[in-house]
C-alpha cells in the first residue's frame, strides 16, 4: 500500500506552516523527513496521525481513503498514571479487545521490545531508552500499517541512539512496517532511511538518497541546511565562474552572480583529475578517524575540507582537483 | 447548534456565579424594596455614598479589617517564605511530616481549632488583642501561602542560587538578586491569598478578638440576621471595593510586565 500526500497545506492564524506538500511513500520502507526546528515537521506528522486537519489537500493510500498513522511522540508521553503494561495495552483496551487476546499480544510485544521485566513499573521509574521502547511497544501492539515517529532519538545519548536506530530498523523488517519519521539530525536520517525528504519553511525542497543529497543538493537552501560545505561568492560569465578561490567552468543556471558549492567531502580531491580546482596552503588539521578536517587558505579565503588522514601536511601548498565539474547556485 | 449550546452553558455559569453580586449591588442602593416587588421602587445613590464615606461605624470596621489584614500578610510571609524555601530547595528529615503538619489547620474542623485556640489565648493573655487575632488569621492563611510559594519555587529549584554563589555572590546578595526576584509570582499569590483570608474571617475574629475587632465581614452578620439587608449590602460593597479593586490592580499592572519563569 502506497501512501500519497497530495497538495497538503496547513495555514494557522494566517501563517503558512505547510505549503503544498506532495509525497509518495511506498509501503514496507522508512521515509525520513529532515528539517530544522520550525520547518513544519511536527505539523505534518500531526496531520498524518489525524491529530490535526490540513487546511487543504489530502492524505490517502491505495486502498484506504482515510489512513491514520500511529505516532511515537518525541517526549514519549507515556501516561504517568499507568504501569508499563497498562501503557502498552492502552489502545487494545480502548478498542475493547478481549482480555485473553490483550494478554497474549502484550506478552509478544513486550518480548520483542525487550521490556517484559519492566511491565509492572511506572514511567517515572524508567530510563530514557526504556521509555522509548515502551512508547514503541504501545504503538506496535496495534499492528499499525503506518508508524509515525517524531524526533525519535533526539533525547537519547550517543550510544543509546545507535542502538535504538538499529532496533527500529530491525522492527521495520520484522513487521514490514511503513515508517515516516522526522528529525533534525542529518546522521539519524541517513542511517535509518534510503529516502530523505528535506523540509524547509513548510516546503519539501528535495527528496533523494542521502548520497545524492550531499553531493548534488538542488538549491542553495538545501546546501546551506545540510551544512558541511563552503560557499564561495563570485561572478558568472558564459558558464565560467570568477572568484578568489576558483575560476573556471561550472555547472549553473545563474547568469551574473552565484555561489560555488564546495562540500567538505566528496568533491574536492588531492589526487589529480581533469578538473583542476585551486592551489591552497594547509593551515591546520584535526583528526577524526579515517578522515581529517583540513583548513586551507586560498588567496586569502579559508576553506574547510575532509581529506583522507595524512594525505596533506600543515604549512605546505598543494594543488587540489574536482571530481567533476562543480556546481554554482 | 453546538456553538449555541456552549454559549448557553457559558452564560448560565456566568449568571450563577455573578448573581449574588448583582443582587447585593441592587440591594445596596434600592430603597422601599418589599415583597412582592421585583425591583426597588426607588434608588438612592446618595445614601450609599454617604454611608460608604462618612458612616463612622463602617469606616471603623474598614480600618480594623485593613489593619488586621496587613498584620496577617506580614506575619504569614515571615513564616511561610522561609518554610517554602526549605521545602522546595532541600531534602531533610521530617519533610513529609512537615508537609502534613502545614495542612492540619485546614483539615481539623475550624470550630475545634478556634475554641481550642481561644482557650489558649486566654491563658496567654492574648484574647482580644491585635496580635492574637492576627495569629488566628495567619494560622488559616499559612497552608495556602506555603502551597503557592512552594509551587512557584520548586519549578526552578535552587539551581540559579547555586550559579549565583558559584559566581562569587554572597548569600545575602544571592537572596536579594536571585531568590527574591524569582519567587515574585509566588510571593504575589501568597500576599493576595493571606489578605483575602484575613478579610473574610468571621468566627476567629469575633471569638479571639473578643468583640474588639468588628471588621466588615463581622459587622455584616448582625445586619443580615436582623433583616437589615440594605446596610449589610453596603458593607458588602465596601468589602468588594477594598478587596477586588486592589487585587485587580495588582493582577493587571504586575502581570503583563512580569517575565514568565518556566521550567524547560
Amino acid at each position, binding site marked *: 500500500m502506497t501512501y500519497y500526500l497530495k497538495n497538503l497545506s496547513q495555514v494557522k492564524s494566517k501563517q503558512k506552516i505547510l505549503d503544498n506538500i506532495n509525497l509518495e511513500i511506498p509501503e514496507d520502507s522508512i521515509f525520513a523527513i529532515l528539517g530544522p526546528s520550525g520547518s513544519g515537521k511536527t505539523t505534518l506528522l500531526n496531520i498524518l496521525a489525524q491529530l490535526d486537519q490540513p487546511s487543504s489537500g489530502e492524505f490517502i493510500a491505495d486502498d484506504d481513503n482515510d489512513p491514520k498513522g*500511529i*505516532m511515537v*511522540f518525541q*517526549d514519549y*508521553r507515556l*501516561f*504517568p*498514571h*499507568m504501569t508499563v503494561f497498562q501503557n502498552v495495552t492502552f*489502545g487494545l483496551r*480502548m*478498542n475493547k479487545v478481549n482480555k485473553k487476546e490483550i494478554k497474549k499480544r502484550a506478552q509478544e510485544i513486550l518480548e520483542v521490545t525487550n521490556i517484559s521485566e519492566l511491565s509492572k513499573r*511506572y514511567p517515572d521509574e524508567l530510563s530514557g531508552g526504556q521509555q522509548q521502547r515502551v512508547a514503541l511497544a*504501545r*504503538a506496535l501492539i*496495534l499492528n499499525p500499517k503506518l508508524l509515525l515517529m517524531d524526533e525519535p532519538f533526539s533525547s537519547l545519548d550517543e550510544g543509546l541512539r545507535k542502538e535504538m536506530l538499529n532496533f527500529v530498523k530491525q522492527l521495520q523488517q520484522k513487521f514490514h512496517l511503513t515508517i515516516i519519521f522526522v528529525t533534525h539530525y542529518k546522521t539519524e536520517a541517513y542511517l535509518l532511511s534510503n529516502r530523505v525528504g528535506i523540509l524547509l519553511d513548510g516546503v519539501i525542497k528535495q527528496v533523494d538518497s542521502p548520497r545524492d543529497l550531499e553531493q548534488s543538493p538542488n538549491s542553495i537552501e538545501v546546501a546551506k541546511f545540510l551544512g558541511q560545505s563552503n560557499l564561495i561568492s563570485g561572478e558568472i560569465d558564459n558558464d565560467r565562474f570568477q572568484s578568489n578561490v576558483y575560476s573556471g567552468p561550472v555547472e549553473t543556471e545563474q547568469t551574473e552572480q552565484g555561489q560555488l558549492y564546495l562540500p567538505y567531502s566528496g568533491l574536492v580531491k588531492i589526487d589529480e583529475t581533469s578538473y583542476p580546482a585551486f592551489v591552497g596552503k594547509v593551515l591546520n588539521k584535526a583528526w577524526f578517524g579515517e578522515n581529517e578536517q583540513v583548513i586551507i587558505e586560498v588567496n586569502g579565503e579559508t576553506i574547510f575540507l575532509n581529506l583522507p588522514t595524512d594525505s596533506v601536511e600543515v604549512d605546505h601548498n598543494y594543488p587540489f582537483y574536482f571530481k567533476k565539474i562543480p556546481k554554482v547556485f | 447548534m453546538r456553538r449555541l449550546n*456552549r454559549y448557553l*452553558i*457559558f452564560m448560565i*455559569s*456566568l449568571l*450563577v*456565579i455573578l448573581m*449574588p*453580586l448583582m*443582587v447585593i449591588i441592587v440591594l445596596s442602593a434600592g430603597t422601599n424594596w418589599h*415583597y*412582592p416587588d421585583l425591583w426597588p421602587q426607588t434608588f438612592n445613590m446618595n445614601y450609599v455614598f454617604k454611608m460608604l464615606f462618612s458612616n463612622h461605624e463602617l469606616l471603623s470596621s474598614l480600618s480594623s479589617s485593613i489593619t488586621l489584614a496587613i498584620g496577617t500578610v506580614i506575619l504569614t510571609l*515571615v*513564616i511561610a517564605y522561609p*518554610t517554602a524555601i526549605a521545602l522546595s530547595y*532541600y531534602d*531533610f528529615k521530617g519533610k513529609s511530616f*512537615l508537609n502534613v503538619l502545614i495542612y492540619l489547620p*485546614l*483539615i*481539623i*474542623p*475550624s*470550630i*475545634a481549632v478556634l*475554641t*481550642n485556640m481561644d*482557650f489558649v489565648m486566654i491563658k496567654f493573655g492574648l484574647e482580644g488583642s491585635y496580635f492574637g487575632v492576627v*495569629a488566628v488569621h*495567619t*494560622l488559616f492563611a499559612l497552608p495556602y501561602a506555603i502551597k503557592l510559594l512552594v509551587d512557584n519555587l520548586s519549578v526552578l529549584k535552587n539551581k540559579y542560587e547555586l550559579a549565583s554563589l558559584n559566581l562569587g555572590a554572597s548569600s545575602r546578595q544571592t537572596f536579594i538578586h536571585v531568590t527574591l526576584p524569582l519567587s515574585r509570582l509566588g510571593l504575589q499569590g501568597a500576599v493576595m491569598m493571606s489578605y*483575602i483570608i484575613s478579610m*473574610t474571617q*468571621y*468566627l476567629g475574629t469575633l471569638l479571639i478578638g473578643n468583640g474588639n475587632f468588628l471588621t466588615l*465581614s463581622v459587622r*455584616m*452578620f448582625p445586619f*443580615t440576621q436582623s433583616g437589615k*439587608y440594605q446596610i449589610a449590602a453596603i458593607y*458588602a460593597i465596601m*468589602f468588594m471595593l477594598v*478587596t*477586588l479593586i486592589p487585587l485587580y490592580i495588582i493582577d493587571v499592572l504586575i502581570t503583563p510586565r512580569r517575565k514568565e519563569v518556566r521550567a524547560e
Partner: protein
Amino acid sequence: MLTKKKLVLLLSPFYLFFILFFVSAIIRSFITSLGYYPILDQTKISLNNYLDVFHDKMFLTICLRTMVFAIISALFACALGLIIANYFNQKNSRVSGFFYKVSQLPVMLPHIFIVLALLQLLSQTGLIPSLLVHLGLIKSYSDFPLILNDQKQIGIFLTYLWKETPYVIVTLILVLRQIGSKYQAVSLNLGASKWQTFWHVTLPLVQPALVNAFIINFSFNFGSYEVPFLLGNQQKELLPVYVYDLYVQGDITQIPHVMSLNLVLSLASIIIAAVAILISRKLPGGHNGGVR
C-alpha cells in the same frame, strides 16, 4: 549548601508559631479533656469525658448528620467543578481564561455574601417567590417551599456549592493547563474515544488534585460555624453551632466536655482526610501523588 544551621533558621519561624499557638492549643485541650482542670479544682485524670461523648445520643446524631451533609455537599462541588473545568478547558483559551478569572470571584468573597443574596432571592418573601407569584405559578408566598433554615439544609448546601465549586474549577483549570493536551493527543491517536480519553486519561491525572479539593471542602463544611448559624434549622442542628453554643454559653464546667468533643471531631476529620488520600493513592493516577 544546606547546613544544619540554615535549615533551623528557615524552619524555626514556622515551628515556633505552630507549637506556640496550634500544638499547644491541642495539647492543652487534650489535658483538659482528660479532666485536669485546676480552675475547678479538678485534677483527676480519666477518660470519662470521652466515654460520655460516645454515650451522648444527641451529639452522635448531630455528628453523623453533619458528616453526611459535609461529604455530600463536598462531593457535589467536586463533581460540578470537574465537569465545568473540563468543559471549558477544551474551549479556546480566551474563553477559559475569562472564565478562570470570574471563577476566582467566589473564592475571594466571604460566605456571608451568598447568604445575603440567597435570603433576598429564596426566602419565602424573596425575589423568586415574588417572580413566581407575578407569573401566576403560585398563589402566594406561602406556597413556596421553605428552602432557607429548612430541615434538609438546602440553603447551606447552596451556599457551599456557590463558594466551593469555583474553588474546584480554579484548582482543576490550573492542573489541566499544566498537563496540556499532550496525553489526550496520544490517547486519541491510539484509538480511544473522547469519553474514554476523559475517563482513562484526564480524570486519573487530575484525581489527586480533586481529592485534595474534596478534603478541604469537606473539612470546611464539617467544621465551619457561620453558615449553619445563619441558614441552619433549629430542629436539625449542625455540629459547629452545637459546639459553639456549648462553648460560649458560659458554663465553665462544660469546658472539659467541649474539649473532648473537639478532639473527637478533629480525629474524625483527620481520619476521613487520611482515608480519602489512601483511596486516592490506590486509584489510577495516585501512584506518585499525581502530576508534578
